[in-house]
């Protein structure tokens, strides 16, 4: 009898600790999901408040402003429908250029400016991040570009 109660204690101890671990695991997982939003979604308020998320789009021509004495930069990105202003303090990736697709991780400020923690540009000149090409609805344009670049070599 005594042995049996002991066993019940053991089993319940293991079960309780397992469920606590599982709960913590799910919690950590949920807290670290980064959602992706397009500028249009942000302007209608479809984004996680107070959380870090990612936004992607094409860097709008003529919007890049570099500070003269620090690594601060400001630019705007667009999905050809809406525009979001970005503020970033740091060195931009090599392949960052106006007119090209970027994905940015950060938080949206109360002033409507997206404060970037990280700016990612594509790995080579023929690639467009899939999130962007999806949200841009500009697949035809990409296909056009690809065929153009292929023609050179054919």
């Amino acid at each position: 009898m005594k042995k049996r109660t002991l066993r019940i204690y053991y089993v319940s101890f293991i079960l309780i600790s397992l469920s606590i671990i599982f709960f913590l695991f799910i919690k950590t997982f949920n807290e670290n999901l980064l959602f992706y939003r397009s500028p249009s979604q942000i302007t209608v308020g479809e984004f996680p408040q107070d959380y870090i998320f990612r936004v992607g789009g094409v860097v709008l021509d003529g919007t890049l402003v570099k500070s003269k004495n620090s690594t601060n930069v400001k630019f705007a990105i667009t999905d050809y429908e809406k525009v979001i202003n970005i503020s970033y303090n740091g060195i931009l990736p090599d392949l960052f250029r106006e007119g090209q697709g970027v994905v940015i991780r950060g938080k949206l400020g109360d002033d409507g400016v997206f404060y970037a923690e990280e700016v990612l540009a594509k790995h080579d000149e023929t690639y467009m991040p899939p999130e962007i090409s999806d949200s841009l609805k500009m697949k035809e344009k990409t296909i056009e570009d690809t065929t153009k670049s292929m023609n050179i070599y054919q």
Partner: protein
Amino acid sequence: MISYIGSFLILIALLNASLLVLARPIFSKISTDYDSLILSTSKLQFPLVLIAFICLIASFVNDDFSLRYISSNSNSALPFFYKISATWAGHEGSMLLWCLILSFWTFMASIYSKSLNIEFRTKFLSIMGFLNLGFLLFLVFTSNPFEKNISIPIDGKDLNPLLQDFGLIVHPPMLYMGYVGLSVVFSFAVTCLLQNDFKREWARWVRPWALISWSFLTLGIALGSWWAYYELGWGGWWFWDPVENASFMPWLVTTALIHSLITCEQKAMFKNWTILLSIIAFSLSLLGTFLVRSGILISVHSFANDPARGAFILLFLTIIVGGSLLIYFKNAPKIQDNISFDFFSRESFFLINNILLVTATFTILLGTIYPLLLDLLGLEKISVGVPYYNAVFLPIMTPLVLLAGYIPIMFSSKSKNKKYMISHLLLSFLIVILFTLFSIYFLDNYNISILLGIFIFIWISFNIIYDLIMKIYFSNIKKISFSNIGMMFAHLGLAVFILGATIVENNKVEKEVVIKIGDTIQVKDYTFEFKNISEYEGPNYQGIMAKFLVYENNNLLTELYPEKRIYASNNMPMTEAGIDPGLSRDLYITLGTLINDDVWSVRIYHKPLIRLIWLGALMMVFGGILSVLYKRKNLAFSR
């Protein structure tokens, strides 16, 4: 001309592989001598694919731009060695490399399997043949490197500048040796299932293959990490990027496998579990290939979004994984497992090791696959942040590495005196705590995770060195086998890795500053002076090179030359870091952008002990190879 020979040989290899697969089912009805056919075809595969591969290299060297693969991955101005390494820099060529390595392992398996009984051996080689056939079909139908251009371009597009580097020459072949080496273990496990048995001698036969694959995987991953560190210009060594995870998951499962195989061999336990691990390990390496090559994940590794490729690999993956799991659930219950063991035994600790490693793999798999599934279902575009991996992976690994520091020592002595063991445990624990506290003296910054990292480092290395000394002085040195020393080296490598990773992640200094030519900046004990900037002409790029003088306590220490390169063929800018490597710390500078006139933004990093990360990995590789070299006793195989 050469490319036609290559094309032709691939087709012959395809036929040869089909023959290897079909020999058993077809010729067993006609004649009984299908064994020699299987043995010869399994050996012939390697020279066929090898010559085809050499043909592709020769075509690259000859600038044969009539091949589409070469015109899009090479350029006449590309330096000679990069022309060779460009052979496996793109998708098609890297799949040919995959096929080459698979045929190489098939060849090796065919040669070194004489000790297996003939029925087992031929079944096993036929399964290897099936894998060869699958990948050759994939190569021929979706990614033929010998495909012709419709019209021949004057010059090629050039290799992605990121890949024009020594790291690329060695990283893919090493990683593939590991990935594909697991195919031997996989085929072996499936054969065991077909035979309804998994003998101890078989475990002894397959363990070196698992170990050598594990060593190559370790080396491949370490090389990839090293390459990312110096080439991407961020100074990071691990990003929890899905592509990295794809290689890390098979590594974790293979680590579990080489431990469980010991139990299989010595105690005839965990047979079914080990077979399952073998299947999972290879499946994960196939999954990795699928994720990386299908274009689902976008990175420097994926080349083109070709749905046909993704679909083919997915189909192949389903057949391999689905088929082997089906056989597993049908036949595994028939395999006799010895399941009685003490709670307080080496076996139960191996079980804990396996559970922790598989749990860790699962958490990484979830973080890698979940975003893809949501995206595929069109529900949401998400990614899983780095904090998730750190928060989940590190707590799972901590008990594992603590056990790795003690369990091998505890059970290496034959004495089963529990009282002695407990007092020994407490004593070594106290000594290690003292050492850890003493180490604070050398640190200018410490927190709980640094102390834990140092504790684990001292814990593992102290126990191993103590054990080694005890063995040398109190027993005969000949008793220490190669495999034992190999294990010690690998575990010591783990300790060194943990020390490096902990210190660099907690104590690194990363500055992004704006600096004018002639100005200086202080980082830790080092003064960096931005001396000048100059332009130069590279073989296939325009270079901008900055000169930095580094002073330590007003003495000139070294000069660093970070660069920007603009590649002529595609106008892509590239950052080349200026690195002063050292065992105690790396100094790392990359050029950012021109702010105005002679003002630049630069990154200056101080990375303490970062070299230990790769040194530790190299020690693991060395340990793995030592264990393989261990002379095995010739056990008579039951036939």
